[in-house]
């Protein structure tokens, strides 16, 4: 139950930041994907099953707030959530630098799957935002690894 509540809070926070950043600056919102960030973090902390369901929920929210094909972001995020949980169980991605690279790779994968399906399979026009979209994995990695570090430190302090 606690896991479900945490995932729901994650979705709401991602949704809040997505709405807020769109209001503040379009460029900012294009260079950071909060939904993917939430999916990867949940996958990292709660394992592949939580990551998979979180990915599906976040992806379908993105799809329902976009006029593109419904299900593409869902598919990309589901896969990302699963892989984030699975790989982090097999490989130690806790150290900060490894974590940064890992989140960057996961965010790049999500972007590649989404772009590949949108453009190559469905022929949808992709708005690159003057190239800002390619900065998404970088910013997602930086913010994600800092958040992960912060959460770990907070938990460690709390458990003491």
């Amino acid at each position, binding site marked *: 139950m606690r896991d479900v509540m945490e995932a729901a809070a994650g979705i*709401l926070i991602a*949704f*809040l930041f*997505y*709405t*807020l950043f*769109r*209001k503040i600056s*379009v460029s900012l*919102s*294009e260079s950071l994907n909060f*939904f993917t960030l939430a999916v990867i973090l949940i996958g990292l902390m709660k394992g*592949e*099953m939580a990551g*998979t*369901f979180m990915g*599906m929920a976040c*992806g*379908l*929210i*993105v*799809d*329902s*707030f*976009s*006029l*593109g*094909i*419904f*299900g*593409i*972001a*869902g*598919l990309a995020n*589901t*896969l990302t959530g*699963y892989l984030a949980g*699975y790989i982090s169980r097999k490989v130690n991605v806790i150290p900060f630098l490894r974590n940064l690279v890992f989140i960057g790779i996961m965010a790049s994968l999500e972007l590649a799957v*989404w772009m590949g399906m*949108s453009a190559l399979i469905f022929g*949808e*026009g*992709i*708005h*690159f*935002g003057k190239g800002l979209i390619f900065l998404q994995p970088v910013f997602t990695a930086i913010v994600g690894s800092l958040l992960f570090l912060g959460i770990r430190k907070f938990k460690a302090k709390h458990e003491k």
Partner: protein
Amino acid sequence: MSQIQSERRKQLVLAGLLFFQLVLISLQVPRGEESSYFEKGIFFIFSPVQRGIHALFEKMGSVWTRYVDLRSVEKQNRDMKDELFRLRQENIQLRNGLEKFTDKQAIARILSDLRQSYLFAAVIGADASNLYKSVIIDKGSRDGLTNSMAVVDKYGNLVGRTINPVSLGEATVQLLTDDNSGISVYSKDHRVVGVLAGDGKSGTCWFKYVQATNTDLAVGEELITSAFDRIFPAGIKVGRVVSIVTDNSLFKKIAVRPELDLADLNFVAVLTQRLDTLF
């Protein structure tokens, strides 16, 4: 053994969810632009959340802007009085002009209908994956909005049309820059007719189906809606021709810069009634 089984179960869940989403994607093919109940459901649940977040930050932002506004309120008041005076004069001139064609009662009825045919809405969100596709507004079916109503900005330029999903208090507006948008337009000076389609990538549009042999159209010419599509009323400003290329194909390649400015799109007006039926 149990670990292998657990791994298998997780992989099966993943495969099941991926399959479910592939079904969702494939279900859209026969439906076209009509959104599924599942998609509508998610929009129905989360759009009020977005509306709440928008309202919260508007309130927080207004604390500062109220202070700033107070400092310039006298000048604003003076400017608005000037504007009101000018608009009143314009209104009287237009009424006098109209009286040449029709009687006073008919004019009063037309103006009353005109006031009721606009519904003002605030833009509360943008498209989650492509900025040039759609925006979300804070009016929905409860306010009388339905699918395919024309939407204009505060300057009267065309923004797009309402499209599904439309929830009780929120609606999606397909922008004219969306690559699936098609609007029947004509050039104001030379009356060249065609279809305006969005690009979906850069915010520019294409004026399609103008024959390569056509020599009338010029760069800088204004495009307005023609109402041939039976969605958008005639005479709404859409954009300006920025380049014309003629190659070996049957039609010219004409780029159009839309009048719509996404950075300045905070409020819009939805035309709940066809204005061209009023006159």
